[in-house]
């Protein structure tokens, strides 16, 4: 029972982490689209695109760090076939 609980907890945490990453992208996009709608295209700075890519990069790095910490806390070592 204890093993099953730990397994379920691990899977739930992995799923939540995935959802949080996707939500972060959605939130970033929402802000960009609101900016587009209210500020106007002509006033968007030229560095909007590099900024968006940087945010995506930060989301990926944060996701990977959190995932590595999660695996570590459950005692997993990643093995691929």
């Amino acid at each position, binding site marked *: 029972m204890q*093993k099953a609980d730990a397994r379920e907890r691990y*899977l739930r945490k992995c799923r939540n982490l*995935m959802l949080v*990453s996707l939500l972060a992208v959605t939130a970033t*996009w929402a802000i960009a689209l609101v900016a587009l709608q209210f500020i106007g295209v002509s006033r968007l700075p030229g560095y909007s695109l590099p900024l968006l890519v*940087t945010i995506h990069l930060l989301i*990926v790095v944060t996701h*990977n760090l959190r995932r590595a910490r999660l695996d570590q806390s459950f005692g997993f070592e990643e093995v691929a076939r």
Partner: protein
Amino acid sequence: MRSVPGNSSRPRRLTWSYGLLAAALVGLLVILEILGTDGATIDRIFLTVVGLHLLYAAFVSRTMTLHAFLYGDQAASSRLVGCILAASFLCGALVFNLGGEPIGYTALAFCAAGGTAAYVVLNACIVPHFRKSGSSSTASFLGDHFDSNSVRICASLVLLAVNAAFIIAGLALAATVLESKLQVTPLTAAIASALLVALSAIFGGMRSVGWTAGPLFVAICMGLAAYLLLPFLQTLGLADPLPATAELRPTLLSDELDSPLSVSGWGSATMMLTCMAGVASLPFVHAAFATARSLKAARMASAWALLFILGIVAVVPVLPAEFTSSTGANGSVLLPLDAMTQIVEEMLGNPPADFPQVWSGVVTAGLLAAAIALTSLAITNSANSMSNDIVFAWKGAKADTASRLVVARLAILLMAGGGAVLVLHGQQFVLPGISLALGFSASSILLPLILGIWWKRMDWIAALAGMLGGLTAASLWLYHVSTVDTPWLALDFNRIALPGMAGSLICMLAANLVHKRSASGEDETKHEALHFPNGNAPYANLAK
């Protein structure tokens, strides 16, 4: 054979040797120019030498083992996989930008933002599980996961069609560059680009792709740096501003070409979603991750790809207008490649004043490298899938390695030849082909793939229904778009992925309801094997 001793540092050595060779060659050719060598000879020498280096890298990666041909030995570092992905991304962006529909900066920026967001989706939802499954292609992953040859064949056919569009686009870019720079006939240019791509993939398959990725990425960076040198010098006040009629001028990107739809919130959101779903479902992108040496490397590859792409797009705001604004002339989606030829000719024309002639060779090599990087990856992925997921699908592990490799190599030759013919005779379909490929790929592959990984109750019937439903919905929407002036919900030709994905989801849920069942023990085991890092013994560590 899981690993090849002594081969792990080969890609790094090839990358460094290319960088040193290109730098030495630039110095030598500058001296030759001072001594009176003419410009055409200098261009030919540079392109020949760097082309030979590429072919050498492809040749030394030759193999007769299936593991090397399918997975590139699974020895690629995260940086190398990032190089492959970034180079492919750049080539796609170049083809899209140089000859596509007239679009402005806003639309372009949202497309690129959607494309880079795809790496977040890949990293969070797909790649670790795909890499962990040990599959070499999206089709084999889906076939194995759902234990269904029907799913595998269906996914393979979609994969081949999607990859074909990108192969043709990459060959078209390479042929255009060769035709413009070397002043050869279109037939010669098409044959030369097909040969270059075929030879860069045929010897080692995915191992060739991995070993040539570093040199190709260096060539792209050198080409981009050379192209942007003058605008940067002018921005810093170190070079005289050019007259208004000059070809190269530093300028902020213009939004004059943006249509009302592309600058609206709805238009931008749907474009971003389409690009994200399209890139996240591309089979050759998944195949690149299969070459990573570990799960951790596969995860970090997304971060490296984004970092490399960031390095490239960070200079976008100071790019010359000719480079960034689209060249499409009439607003139709069925554009000939004349526009691309024209802009490539302008880019590769005479170097700016006070610049050595070799500048033009370096820029040409960068464009060619981008085209070859994308095309060789897509052609290898298609050939592997054709061999293992279609021809030998029913034989499974029983088919012998030599036969598989022969079929894969024949497929590479066939697709390169077919691509060259289509570049010559079907140019008007090259650019819309990319939009269609993204749309159909997202419609049929993405949701069955993600739900297959994350939803235990998905079975092969639901997956097959999702794929066929997505394809049908996207095709019907394409028919709708072609028959009306203003498509419903403003989902035009470039956005057919969204109705396609909706159709796919509805069909999957309907099939699941009709074929109602709860997850079996086997489903649970498969699910855990994909999600738990230590494979088939997920309880081992927890028990400690």
